[in-house]
């Protein structure tokens, strides 16, 4: 048995030792299956990468040569067939319209996500809104365009604002769903601490929950946390981080309830607090108030 184990590559485990020929056959089949599957996965990577690389290189090869300062800033030619000086207005228009859409969709989306995660939670209305936000994510862009056409353009005419409206409608559900995902990652201990200090729910959300979530919202990458995972064996070390994604960042962040100290909470009213401070060499007064030590034990 021990000799057999020596022959085996580490990832394939012996199933309690393949002593009989049948066991060995099974083992071989499983290993072939695994190899076949690995081949399939690798093949799909190749299949996916080839066209994507082809498209990017084609666009760069064909279009790269015309990119210049003039192209980026000068006017669009009036005759579409003439070789124009540039694409300036189109580029500016893209930026303005996207910016306007963002200004509309992001605050509304964040507020809606706050409702879903902080107020509604699992009640029926919140469930309906959540479902409908998902449905809205799937609404094709052309339908959204027709919608804005019927509701806005028919009345007020074509405008950049109409375009921004359509874009905002497309963005809204995406902002809602991804923000909600991130709000869910904010440790509940943070909310509890703030509420226990007597802060209202609104203040808890504005000064505690949202600031903690903003890095995630702006980059829209909650799963970045998961990317830190390693292969099996390595993760035990990482597991703590993975389970408390936001906690891990807290020491670098301003203490969420900064400014609340005017209520006198920080002035030693709590008999349990000094111990925490004593253990904590680095952070300033605010951090001692709601620093990493009390929070990290929560989740």
């Amino acid at each position, binding site marked *: 048995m021990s000799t057999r184990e020596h022959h085996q590559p580490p990832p394939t*485990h012996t199933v*309690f030792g393949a002593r009989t020929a049948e066991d060995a056959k099974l083992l071989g089949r*499983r*290993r072939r*299956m*695994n190899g076949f599957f*690995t081949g*399939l*996965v*690798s093949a*799909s990577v190749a*299949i*996916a990468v080839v066209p*994507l690389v*082809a*498209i*990017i290189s*084609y*666009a760069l090869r064909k279009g790269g040569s015309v990119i210049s300062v003039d192209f980026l800033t000068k006017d669009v030619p009036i005759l579409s067939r003439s070789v124009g000086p540039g694409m300036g207005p189109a580029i500016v228009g893209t930026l303005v319209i996207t910016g306007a859409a963002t200004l509309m969709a992001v605050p*509304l989306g964040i*507020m*809606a996500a706050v*409702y879903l995660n902080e107020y*509604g939670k699992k009640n029926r209305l919140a469930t*309906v809104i959540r*479902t*409908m936000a*998902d*449905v809205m994510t*799937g*609404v*094709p862009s*052309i*339908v959204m365009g*027709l*919608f804005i056409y*019927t*509701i806005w353009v*028919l009345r007020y005419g074509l405008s950049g604002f109409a375009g921004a409206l359509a874009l905002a409608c497309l963005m*809204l*559900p995406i902002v*809602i769903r991804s923000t909600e995902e991130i709000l869910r990652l904010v440790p509940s201990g943070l909310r509890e601490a703030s*509420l*226990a200090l*007597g802060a*209202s*729910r*609104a*203040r808890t*959300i*504005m000064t505690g929950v949202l600031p903690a979530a903003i890095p995630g919202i702006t980059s829209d990458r909650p*799963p*970045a946390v*998961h990317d830190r995972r390693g*292969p*099996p064996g*390595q993760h035990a070390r990482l*597991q703590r981080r993975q389970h408390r994604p936001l906690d891990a960042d807290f020491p670098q962040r301003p203490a969420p309830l900064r400014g609340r100290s*005017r*209520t006198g909470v920080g002035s030693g009213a709590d008999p349990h607090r000094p111990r925490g401070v004593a253990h904590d060499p680095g952070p300033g007064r605010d951090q001692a108030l709601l620093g990493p030590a009390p929070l990290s034990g929560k989740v």
Partner: protein
Amino acid sequence: MIATPSTTRPPEAEPRTGVPEGPLHGGSRLADQLFRGVCLASGLLVLVVLGLILFSTTKEAMPAFRHEGLGFITSKNWNPADGHFGALAFIYGTLVVSAIALLLAVPVSLGLALFITELAPTRFRTPATYLIDLLAAIPSVVYGLWGILVFGPEIARLYTHLSTTFDGVPLLGNLTAVPQGRSFMTAGIILAIMITPIVTSISKEVFATVPRDQKEAAWGLGATRFEMIRGAVFPYSRTGLVGAVMLGLGRAMGETIAVALVIGSSPAITGHLFGPGDAMAAVVANQFGEASGTHRAALIGLGVVLFVMTVLVNLLARRVTSRADRRLAGGKR
């Protein structure tokens, strides 16, 4: 004042009679209620917008609906000049193209997502993730142009080859007849390329939510990587994967420019996948500019049909997944 209150206030704010109002309570209960109201209103906005989409587009499409009646979705005669607006051929085209796209894109996307989450060396994972997200952000017109300028002519040669090979073979011969660069198949392939990054990106996130201990358990029992994925990763992430596929389907059905460029714009209900056809979104994009009156109403009507189809598909997917969820009760999602 601070030492006494209960550690967590219950979710529903109860009247805090015992606690005096003061600076501690920030903006007072009124502000709190106001904030809640604003958040609620933002949430309700989703329902309002969805309702408005259905209402206002249907209203504008009414002339065409009244003109055609049920024929709008059961007739395949679309002839704006003669006032015939039967959209069946476009509905068929949309379904066929989306099906081709999903069949091609989903296996590849799952493979790619598995590669990134389970197979690739750790240090490649973050760059690979960024690359996929980047690709998902490429505007569709770039894909469409590539499809029409580069891919179409190339693939047309392959089509011709296949067509002559399978000529006379019962089923395949029919599928591959009248080969042309601009066709259902080309549109399907371009769409598959377009939705691969988004489906990959979401499936990757879904795979990442599989609890470590379940995978550990599989490894610990001596499973091979394939067995671990089949036994631990797939069952747990089935729900999320359906969601990913549905999102891909939504994109595929609604994708406009790229499809409009490569599908060939000829309304036909045919099994010739390598021949030209047309799809709803593409028709709207191609004809909206010069349409007026009933024609325009009919195009908006296509939008209504498309909207209803995507909503139905989405709701159906939710039903399926929530049922699967209940069967798998105990998981976190």
